């Protein structure tokens, strides 16, 4: 602030113009303000949190009632308190990923991008800021949701074979992994929105990548599947928060690395398009 007072004290014939300047931190704060000044942000984040917690509790309740009546679905038989509580991740990732697409592609569909890029004509800081701001928000929502779902979910299934506490080995790692996964899904949403510049296109690709492609892979010969399947975004991501890993799945660390790779790929594509093509 000393520079400001110094210039103000200089004798001048014309009134000194304020020294404005675009900085990375200011672009970040602008994107933060933009995110929270839209109603859709609050609604979608609320839905994401609700999906995460509610579906986890529903899964835990079904497991418990299955135990009591003795009629257990085979899918549920090997469940743990962690896998039951994180059942909602599949649904929460949709809400958070879609909001990520809206954060970037929404600017193209409304025309806001012209104002944004006129203010920050170097462009790339806008993408990094959007991805960072929304990624951190999605990470926070995902982590809080995962812990809340586990605390109540493990309460429901206590006294059953699935019972587990926070102190149980790998539980905290799984819950943090789920939060991190959801944060990165948010970043991928931002990147897809900026890459495709279309809300519908971004959401379609997001859903295809996270939900459809794993299904299509099962059509391949099984020897291929084992080589491809663990590296798909959805499966690598699942390795990040799964408590137990079978022989074909990646370890949590490897899953994180692969998923980070996919995120970087999407962001790189988005950055290339943003920098190279007319807005």
């Amino acid at each position, binding site marked *: 602030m000393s520079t400001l007072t110094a210039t103000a004290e200089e004798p001048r014939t014309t009134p000194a*113009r*304020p*020294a*404005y*300047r*675009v*900085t990375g931190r*200011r*672009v970040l*704060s*602008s994107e933060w*303000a*933009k995110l929270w*000044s*839209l*109603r*859709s942000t609050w609604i979608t984040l609320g839905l994401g949190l609700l999906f995460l917690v509610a579906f986890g509790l529903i899964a835990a309740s079904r497991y418990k009632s299955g135990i009591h009546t003795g009629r257990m679905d085979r899918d549920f038989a090997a469940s743990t308190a962690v896998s039951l509580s994180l059942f909602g991740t599949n649904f929460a990732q949709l809400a958070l990923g879609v909001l990520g697409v809206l954060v970037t592609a*929404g*600017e193209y569909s*409304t*025309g*806001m*991008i*012209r*104002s944004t*890029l*006129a*203010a*920050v*004509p*170097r*462009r790339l800081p806008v993408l990094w800021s959007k991805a960072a701001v929304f990624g951190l928000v999605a990470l926070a929502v995902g982590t809080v949701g995962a812990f809340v779902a586990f605390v109540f979910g493990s309460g429901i299934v206590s006294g059953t074979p699935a019972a587990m506490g926070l102190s149980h080995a790998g539980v905290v790692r799984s819950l943090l992994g789920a939060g991190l996964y959801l944060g990165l899904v948010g970043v991928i949403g931002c990147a897809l929105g900026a890459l495709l510049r279309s809300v519908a296109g971004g959401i379609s690709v997001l859903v295809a990548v996270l939900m459809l492609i794993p299904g299509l892979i099962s059509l391949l010969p099984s020897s291929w599947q084992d080589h491809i399947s663990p590296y798909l975004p959805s499966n690598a991501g699942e390795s990040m928060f799964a408590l137990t890993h079978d022989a074909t799945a990646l370890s949590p660390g490897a899953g994180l690395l692969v998923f980070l790779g996919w995120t970087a790929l999407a962001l790189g594509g988005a950055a290339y398009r943003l920098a190279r093509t*007319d*807005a």
Partner: protein
Amino acid sequence: MIDARKLTKRYGEKTAVDGLDFVVRPGTVTGFLGPNGAGKSTTMRMIVGLDAPSDGSVTVNGHHYARHQAPLQEVGTLLEAKSVHPGRSAYNHLRALALTHGIPRRRVDEVIDLAGLASVAKQRAGAFSLGMGQRLGIAAALLGDPQTVMLDEPVNGLDPEGVLWIRNLLKTLADEGRTVFVSSHLMSEMALVADHLIIVGRGRLLADTTVADLIREAGGDMVKVASQDPARLRDVLAGPGVDVTGRIGSEELQVTGLTAREIGLKAAEHGIALFELSARTVSLEEAFMDLTKDAVEYHGTTSGIETLGRPA
């Protein structure tokens, strides 16, 4: 100060802007005129770096727009297309833009008052009328207190009071020594505010001139005179800077370089009877139409029904 050199934008086969060379100077209002599709908006988008030129370059205050530390302080822009998220309030929209530059909250309130948006600043921009939207765009353009103000069709959708407001605003900004660059496809509107004109058609520069020169070049000061003895009148009027034309055998002469009053007095002095003496003023609109008639992208047609019936 905007300096365009051989500025060119091609979209595939089509050349939207074709080697434009022009300079927009501070202290005056410069009108950017051309029919629809002449390349005005594309040129303005290139000035602020939204579109990259295919060839040539354009600088603002000596640098490429993106090279400035505080772009909004150099150029304030109103683009023709909507550039606001409809879900955000006017205040939050301006605040988000201000945050990128460290522009204080106080300045946001100032431009809101300046644009007459104080009563609706907290409402969602999506609920704004066309005129309110334009006012918000102009508030955003003035946010950084810019040296250069560039407005694309600013009077679109404004009511008469708003149009008057824009005119006064543009003149005030120019009087403060700023560079003011305003596009329009309406010559009549430009004639009221602009001193300098840059006229384009089909992406090419047609004229870089002042309003007064444009009228003069279009024969704006011609006087038509019919007399009993045109041959003698021609001799009487001849002099430096005076041009007299007329067909042989006709009573009519077209005179430039003299006013109707001067012609009348000279004729009376030499006892030549005049039958008709009229100053033919060319309106700016005519001068503009004349200049751009070959460059209009979309001609209206009155024979549309006939053409429809004809086999292709």
